[in-house]
């Protein structure tokens, strides 16, 4: 598989008691899969996404923001091949994604859609295990790798102790962790998530994004996330993509593109952007029409 590049690291053991130096081999998974959109037009009856060229940055947090109806979810769905483009194409590893076998694609790219439905009576572990579907066949049902991948995904999403609970009994945040564990168990280079934090408490939102950031930065996965919450997006994005009326308005690091003019233009929101000196993150503060000063 060309997606896995084993890197042998020779570590000299500094322990003086042990004379022979130990050799350690670490199989580190590095994301090499590329996802690109070429002149993409997508829509239902009329185009919603109107000609987009986009290169997803490998191994980074790619976050899509934009006002309601700007086409960010539609773009994500097309990247995930849920929607077929009207024109243009999505390229996964430089090949048209729609001409590749569905199961092959699912080994490289996973999708967590908005508001997924958990079938009644499914336990957490059973749900996470569904993520192994693309790695299985009728003759190869449940392997040791499958078991290991599920255990690891549950550990990463911190839901190991919930393994036997029913999905229906969990809180919104826990449930979302289970879905994220499911796509992690799929062990793909690329993970697409459509508004994974909507309706969740701020604390839970932050926890989830910390988890996703760890996946990108420590495990070299490529994440593409549609987000609603601007400040969260700015805080966690390595690559921020701002969409307006079906087109990409601006993209780059948060430092480059997350500013008052762009926010005003993309969201029609009158706001100022300040930098928190301690964490060096950008924060957008909407300007009230009748501010404090006037009332004073």
């Amino acid at each position, binding site marked *: 598989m060309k997606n896995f590049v084993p890197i042998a690291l020779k570590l000299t053991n500094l322990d003086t008691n042990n004379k022979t130096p130990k050799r350690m081999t670490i199989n580190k998974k590095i994301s090499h899969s590329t996802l690109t959109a070429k002149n993409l037009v997508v829509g239902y009856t009329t185009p919603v996404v109107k000609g987009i060229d986009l290169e997803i940055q490998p191994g980074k947090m790619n976050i899509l923001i934009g006002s309601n109806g700007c086409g960010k979810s539609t773009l994500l769905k097309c990247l995930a091949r*849920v929607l077929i483009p009207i024109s243009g194409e999505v390229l996964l590893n430089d090949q048209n994604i729609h001409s590749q076998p569905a199961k092959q694609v*699912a080994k490289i790219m996973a999708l967590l859609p908005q508001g*997924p439905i958990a079938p009644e009576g*499914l336990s957490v572990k059973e749900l996470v295990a569904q993520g192994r579907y693309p790695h299985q066949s009728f003759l190869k*049902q449940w392997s040791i790798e499958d078991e290991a991948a599920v255990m690891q995904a549950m550990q990463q999403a911190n839901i190991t102790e919930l393994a036997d609970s029913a999905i229906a009994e969990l809180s919104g945040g826990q449930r979302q962790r289970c879905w994220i564990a499911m796509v992690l168990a799929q062990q793909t280079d690329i993970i*697409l998530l459509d508004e994974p934090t909507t309706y969740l408490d701020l604390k839970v939102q932050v926890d989830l994004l910390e988890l996703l950031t760890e996946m990108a930065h420590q495990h070299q996965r490529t994440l593409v996330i549609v987000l609603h919450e601007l400040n969260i997006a700015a805080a966690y994005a390595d690559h921020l993509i701002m969409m307006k009326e079906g087109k990409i308005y601006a993209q780059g690091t948060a430092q480059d593109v997350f500013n008052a003019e762009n926010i005003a233009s993309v969201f029609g929101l009158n706001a100022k952007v300040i930098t928190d000196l301690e964490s060096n993150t950008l924060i957008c503060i909407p300007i009230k029409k009748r501010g404090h000063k006037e009332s004073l």
Partner: protein
Amino acid sequence: MKRQQWLGATGISLMCLLLIVALVIHLSIGTKVISISDILHSFYTYNEDNFDHLIIQELRLPRAMIAICVGACLAVAGALMQGVTRNPLSDPSLLGMMTGGALAVVYWSTFVTNASLIWLPVVAAVGALISASIVWNIAARTHGGITPLSLILSGAAFTAFSGALLAIHHLLDEQTFEEMRTWLVGSLLASNIETLYWCIPWIVVGLIGAIVLAPSVTALSMGEEIATGLGINIRRRKWQLLMCIVILTSAAIALAGPLGFIGLVIPHVVRFIVGADYRWIIPYSILLGAVYLLSIDSLARWLIQPQEIATGLITILMGAPLFIWLVKVKVR
């Protein structure tokens, strides 16, 4: 997962045991009660001159085999239907196949002179197939294409329409209905082993298809976007699953007429036992459907002997209270 597999396998063996018990009961009771040892003898040391052996091998065993096949087919078709449409109230009759099959049989016996009963199963299956393709085409022509909603709605419309045609016919031509009465409520009385022989290949294809496709039904039951993300070609897979449903239901209708309720209730009972994973739901549905119809048919033959009640009626009379009990236990 290992523990679950072990539990699941134990359950399957238990169900097989239950099936054997139900089969023995089915073979033994009737106008003449035949002992277990005689039943066994009729298998191992068959004697043509022994009247009991004849009853078992020529009458009761074929009927039991048909009950097993029909029960399994309908339960699996119902389970697949509920998974694909993500609607717990779906069953094979929702594709209009039951009333469609019935309508075809009624028209055929009215308009074809010298209509021979031998062709009845073929006509029923063809009628069911035509109905399914009509419903399918209506659904495919809607705005969103074949979705759970468009299938259910066009199926409901078609079922109502063909039901009305059936009722008109009933009013105008009582003669035919008198002859078809038992068949129309679903019965194993008139079924014969010949029909089973040419249904078996289809049933095998349908059931194997269901078992092979089962993992993707679980994925589909979590929504089409999740299923796409997991690498399932939605359009092709739904088409394959609907083909399985149509094959299994047509075979069941050919064998036993429009037998309702099994396809609706059995999958729910199975889900109650094994949860929501279709890898288990399908094999359990095969076994439980078979056990259920065998037991129901035993009851149908035993309750008012020497006469018998149409199996289709007992299925519902027993099924409805079972269903209500399930709703009471499950839905809180």
